């Protein structure tokens, strides 16, 4: 496991920090001693082969998985778009976004967001009838419901076509310009300049 080079250093404010993270898988050490600090505008890209621990590390950063060693610090809330979309089989994109907007107490223009993600036509179609790409876009649309400083994305480009990919890249760029930060696990070319690359 190697640490990449920082392209530019952030401010004193660190949106997300982790120190000495260690994870066991069964009795095997998956990774240990992982530390990082993410400042506003930065993007961390996690690389590695399947099973290397990218998803696990993201889940530790999100607070879903408990590390065997080390700690994570958050300065502000985060958005999570995981490997699985979080859609119920009977849930429509509109219902999904409305549910989470209400749950988070966010005042969001659902129709506009659906439109931005090309989901206007299938907005009221149950998730079980949607394509994988449409479900992915619905999950990513959650990012627009509320402004949060840190985005944790697990293979965000899965099942997306070129247009979907470009849309995600534009979102990420906009988010970083506003001072947000992104930690993403990706396969292949991330498509955005990473401040830091972690290879697991």
């Amino acid at each position, binding site marked *: 496991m190697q640490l990449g080079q920082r392209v530019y250093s952030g401010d004193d404010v660190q949106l997300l920090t982790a120190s000495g993270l260690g994870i066991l898988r*069964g009795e095997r*050490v998956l990774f240990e001693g992982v530390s990082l600090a993410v400042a506003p505008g930065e993007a961390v890209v996690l690389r590695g082969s399947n099973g290397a621990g990218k998803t696990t590390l993201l889940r530790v950063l999100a607070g879903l998985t408990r590390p065997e060693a080390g700690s994570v610090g958050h300065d502000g809330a985060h958005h999570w778009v995981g490997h699985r979309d979080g859609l119920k089989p009977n849930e429509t994109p509109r219902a999904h976004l409305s549910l989470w907007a209400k749950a988070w107490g966010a005042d969001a223009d659902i129709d506009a967001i659906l439109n931005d993600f090309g989901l206007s036509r299938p907005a009221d179609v149950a998730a079980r009838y949607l394509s994988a790409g449409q479900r992915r876009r619905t999950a990513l649309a959650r990012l627009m419901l509320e402004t949060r400083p840190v985005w944790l994305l697990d293979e965000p480009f899965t099942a997306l076509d070129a247009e979907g990919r470009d849309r995600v890249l534009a979102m990420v760029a906009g988010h970083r310009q506003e001072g947000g930060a992104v930690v993403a696990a990706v396969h292949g070319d991330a498509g955005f300049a990473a401040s830091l690359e972690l290879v697991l």
Partner: protein
Amino acid sequence: MGMLSAFANPHRFLALSNWLAPLFYAAGAVLIAWGLWQGLWMVPKDEYQGGDIMRVMFIHVPAAWLAMASYSAMAVASFVWFVWRHELADIAAKAIAPLGATWTALCLATGSVWGKPTWGTWWQWDDARMMSVLFLLFLFLGYMALRAAMDSRQKAARAGAILAMVGGLNVPLIKFSVDMFTSLHQDSSVITSEGPKMAAVYLWPLLMSGLGHSLLFGALVMTLMRAEIWTRRAARQRASLLAGT
């Protein structure tokens, strides 16, 4: 490997159990043997409680005590692990479960054997002890099944701890409700051979038998814990070899 040395070194326990377990085995065997000798041959039979068959009480009653006590011990060990994460506590809880289940089953079996010739049925719904012990058996089996169904050792420990603590908090309530239920339906004489009602001639063999069973139980728990410690060590070494460290 700083993270893995968080595995509390069980050297002290291994050293202690090395001589304590054999001692418990020996003392337990002696006491059980004496209790059985007293119970099966020496004490007079009680016709009211079923004649000779009531001698099985010298196994049945200690088994019931152990069933209750061992579940409480398992719950306490689980709580200790949950709060302080001392791995030995989890190993203890894991070891107690199958042994507690065995003594629980033994209690139920001896109770049935007692009940059939005495009251004509293999199972008495009005016997508070038998009912409580039956539910304890389910609690033990549920605990073992849940741990076995988890993917990893750490998850098994966490799941088991949650269940054992929930069960532990419920056991007094279960026992209370069962006692209430059976006290309403007391049409046949219940096996009430405990407490000050019992003649001293029965009490001493019963107590010695109880102590003997407890010592044997303790020795077996230590043996199972030692086996588990070595199993985990071997698994860790194997994992290290695989990882090339």
